[in-house]
């Protein structure tokens, strides 16, 4: 003898519940297969339910007048007849239910065989996955070694946002080493590439010369540089201060300028921003824009801004005259002109004299910072280092930001520590927030 339970079926294609209107049998009655055991009322009609089992009615599990969910057991029969559904999982459930019923426990709802019906306790949960599925057929990675950059003209794999980033940063995706799982270029690959030092860019390592020594006569530009350096270094007491700053907004500003029609065809770089920052900072800290003579300190209320330029014959410092009167655009043009002239070796002595403050760009060599030597006749020199992605704390979280070190050296006869610090902080704050230039 086995205990069988009859779960309320869905008799009308999508019904979820029914009311037991009338029981036609009671516990102890013998019931035959197909004998009507009860009448139910559904949303659609009154229906008589025939027994699936033959045997003795054990218990009526719900009462007349109760509304019952589809799938809930309504009657248990101690039977010798066929099981409700021997080949589906239901029979185990039914047997479990039957077992638990026989031990007088609460019978849980049994999943219905056919049709719908929910059961109040049937909660939907997610089946656990062991592994993610492979992506569908996609373009396969290029045939080169996984971490080597794609050759020009072949396919680079990168998601649209990364392509945009590369475009904005002026990075050619073909030159970037991809580290993505499918061989694609990732965001950090692009950023790393953009910030990459170009230290080794142009140099080949030459062979050891065969002669033991080269003797270079000290004359000309080299002699002049040496004299200037010595004069500067050993007359003015040099002090250097440094500040690291998040220059991400400067990089964005530079990008916007590059895209602006006003700056079409004009070279724009972070150096331009720093030069503007220096002029603004000079206006707030005039002492840094001075000349020491033994009798007096001459504070200049104009800025002839010198830019250290590497030329084939050595380091020269031509300056942009009256830089404080120039708009950003004019300044950009002037700086570009200055650089071109210097590279051509055509800088005039007049252009190299009467500078009031200088900037030197160590970043173009990939160097973080340094302790620049003052240009003779000046009391301040600012060094722009490389701007590269570094971890930075933004709103309490570590983020990758474009970070640079602003360095400056001062003549301590004229510029004390507080002035020096304020000046450098001002320059740095513009690098952090170029909008300050609109002040």
């Amino acid at each position, binding site marked *: 003898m086995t205990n069988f339970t009859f779960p309320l079926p869905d008799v009308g294609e999508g019904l979820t519940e029914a009311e037991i209107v009338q029981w036609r049998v009671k516990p102890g009655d013998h019931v035959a297969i197909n004998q009507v055991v009860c009448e139910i009322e559904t949303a659609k009609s009154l229906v008589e339910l025939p027994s699936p089992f033959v045997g003795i009615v054990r218990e009526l599990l719900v009462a007349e007048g109760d509304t019952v969910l589809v799938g809930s057991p309504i009657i248990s029969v101690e039977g010798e007849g066929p099981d409700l559904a021997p080949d589906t999982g239901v029979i185990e459930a039914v047997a479990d239910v039957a077992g638990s019923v026989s031990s007088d426990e609460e019978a849980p709802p049994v999943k219905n065989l056919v049709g719908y019906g929910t059961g109040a306790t049937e909660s939907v949960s997610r089946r656990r996955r062991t592994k993610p599925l492979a992506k*569908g*057929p*996609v*373009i396969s990675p290029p045939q080169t070694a996984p971490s080597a950059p794609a050759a020009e003209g072949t*396919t*680079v*794999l*990168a*998601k*649209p946002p990364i*392509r945009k980033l590369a475009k904005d940063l002026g990075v050619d995706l073909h030159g970037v080493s991809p580290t993505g799982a*499918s061989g*694609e270029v990732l965001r950090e690959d692009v950023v790393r590439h953009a910030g990459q030092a170009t230290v080794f860019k142009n140099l080949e390592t030459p062979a050891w010369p065969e002669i033991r020594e080269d003797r270079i006569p000290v004359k000309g530009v080299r002699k002049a540089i040496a004299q200037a350096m010595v004069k500067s270094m050993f007359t003015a007491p040099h002090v250097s201060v440094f500040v690291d700053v998040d220059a991400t907004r400067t990089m964005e500003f530079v990008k916007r300028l590059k895209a602006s029609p006003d700056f079409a065809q004009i070279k724009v770089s972070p150096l331009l921003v720093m030069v503007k920052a220096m002029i603004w900072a000079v206006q707030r800290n005039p002492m840094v824009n001075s000349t020491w003579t033994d009798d007096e300190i001459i504070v200049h209320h104009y800025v002839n801004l010198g830019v250290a330029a590497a030329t084939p014959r050595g380091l020269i410092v031509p300056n942009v005259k009256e830089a404080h009167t120039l708009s950003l655009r004019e300044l950009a043009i002037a700086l570009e002109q200055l650089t071109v002239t210097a590279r051509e070796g055509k800088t005039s002595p007049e252009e190299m004299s009467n500078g009031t403050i200088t900037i030197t760009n160590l970043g173009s060599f990939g160097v973080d910072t340094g302790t620049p030597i003052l240009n003779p006749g000046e009391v301040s020199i600012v060094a722009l280092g490389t701007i590269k992605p570094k971890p930075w704390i933004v709103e309490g979280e570590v983020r990758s930001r474009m970070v640079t070190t602003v360095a400056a050296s001062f003549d301590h006869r004229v510029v004390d520590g507080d002035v020096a610090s304020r000046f450098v902080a001002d320059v740095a704050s513009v690098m952090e927030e170029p909008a300050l230039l609109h002040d």
Partner: protein
Amino acid sequence: MNELPMAKAINEGLKSAMTADDKVMMMGQDIAQLGGVFRVTEGLQKLFGPNRVVDTPLAESGIVGTAIGLAMRGYRPVCEIQFDGFLYPAFDQIVTQLAKQTARHEGTQGFPVVIRIPYGGHIGAVEHHQESPEAYFAHTAGLRVVSPATPHDAYWLIQDAIASSDPVIYLEPKSRYWHKGPVDLEASGAPMHKARIAREGTDVTLVGHGAMVTVLHQAAEIAAAEGVSAEIIDLRSLSPLDYDTIVASVNKTKRLVVAQEAPENASVGSEIAATLTERAFYVMEAPVLRVSGFNTPFPPARLENQYLPDADRVLEAVDRSLAY
């Protein structure tokens, strides 16, 4: 190599198929003595007799429903629906019956019925005579859907369709019926469901079918003069779509523009856009752009040139794609 207009090419293809297998038969309105309103079936009843080229009563559902019964009897019926706009009375028999009979019969018999439908605009026709209904069929599992753009493909695809053991919707771009093109009567050159590279290029891939392929050629010529090299893919098959060919092309060009006469919403072009995004995500430099009919009923014919995508509309999308 013969030069044939598409209507003649289809006629030759039908002739060839009917000669090869006497179970192939044709049914439709006005296809017998008149030879079809577009003369595509001209001369066929004379050749094959009234039992094989059958004028039916004016009842599209009846045409397709009886074709299903004939297929059950072992025939290979080729139905003609006179115009795209009139296929809808047959839509029930196509979707609830023809598309599902193979599955319903659990593969014990096939239903090799071909339904030929002239479709598309550009002939200044009245309402219901210029539609592009391919999306309904592409969306219905159990049907194969093809559409030739050239007389050569028209000749071969009709034969492929008839030879298939599955139901095939064969869409004939009616604006191309009388344009001539070379037809190689010896070899088809491509399986039924393979797309064709109609023009090679490197800067952008243009995809279309039927009459749109001609427009794509026009656009590509202009683009070339402007320094943009466009690759053209003629789909030939709308269901299944030959994604391998499209993906390989986009791998090369990185940009995709899909053009269709049909209205854009839930169109075959939209399906291509979704799938290409999945399969070519890492190489695309612009989103897939669709150039389609507007989401309105097909307008009166005097407006069809503004409604249907032309070379300018295709080129606008090409410009937009290149600007990304």
